[in-house]
């Protein structure tokens, strides 16, 4: 029973996080946005959009580059 619960919790967390660094980077963008919002709300919004897009491009480009370096089977 405990194993079933642990497995279900693991699967649930997997819905939101499968690449830890990716999730951490998104969280960092959100945290930065939260810091900037009291100063300039619109600037914070732009930071959120640009930050998320930047994390997406950087992560996928890095994954692609790593795949390109792997020797063919």
């Amino acid at each position: 029973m405990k194993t079933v619960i642990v497995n279900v919790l693991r699967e649930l967390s997997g819905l939101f996080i499968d690449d830890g660094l990716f999730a951490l980077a998104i969280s960092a963008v959100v945290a930065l946005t939260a810091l900037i919002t009291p100063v300039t709300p619109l600037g914070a919004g732009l930071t959120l959009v640009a930050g998320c897009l930047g994390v997406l491009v950087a992560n996928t480009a890095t994954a692609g580059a790593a795949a390109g370096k792997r020797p063919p089977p």
Partner: protein
Amino acid sequence: MMDWTTMAPAVSAAFLSSLVEAVEAMTIVLSVATVRGWRPAGLGALAGLGSLVLIVLAAGPLLNQVPLHALQLVIGILLLLFGMRWLRKAILRAAGVIALHDEALTFANETAALREQARHGKRLDWLAGLASYKAMLLEGLEVVFVVIAVGSGRGLIVPASLGALAACALVAAVGFAIRRPLARVPENKLKFSVGVMLSAFGVFWTGEGLGVAWPGADLAIVVFAVLFLLVALGAVNLAKPSSRRKEAV
């Protein structure tokens, strides 16, 4: 009266994401039905559905107690993580970095695993029903999350739920009719589209939760979706391993 510009993004996101999840759940239920018959498959699926209904009934009143800004922020961040995770994987699959999800292969693997369990004399009906229950519960939780995320706080839970139910009914009807995994559904294109939409919703909600007043209000979601789509399409090209890009040249 809600206008379509407000409803359409939420209903579309709920419908398309439910389509993907329903196809994945259907594959597992079909594999159980193939090996052990429709009784354990159906009972497991119904039990999963019942658990989902209980979760929604319990979570609904709880969510109403949470202050709106806090709810927007938490749901926004979860939606951002969920949507961008889907979009990231769809980009990598489109670029050929990871393999496309293959429902026919999943069906074959699940069926083989259940048959292997039978050879070892395990309580197969119980295990098969559990596999069906787990598939329905886990895929269903993703549907429930998307419906709540795109619909709560704006009176769109009912339209989003109807979109999700329509998708599930469509998949169930086709699955029962053809009795085979729906391998020809363009799953990665669907996941790409859903990832774009949910990421856009996630950015919108997170911003609102933090106190950002987006210019254009709800129309900002459409702008974000267009931005995510264009950047994601560019990211597919960037992510292609350089050997494949050289071959293309």
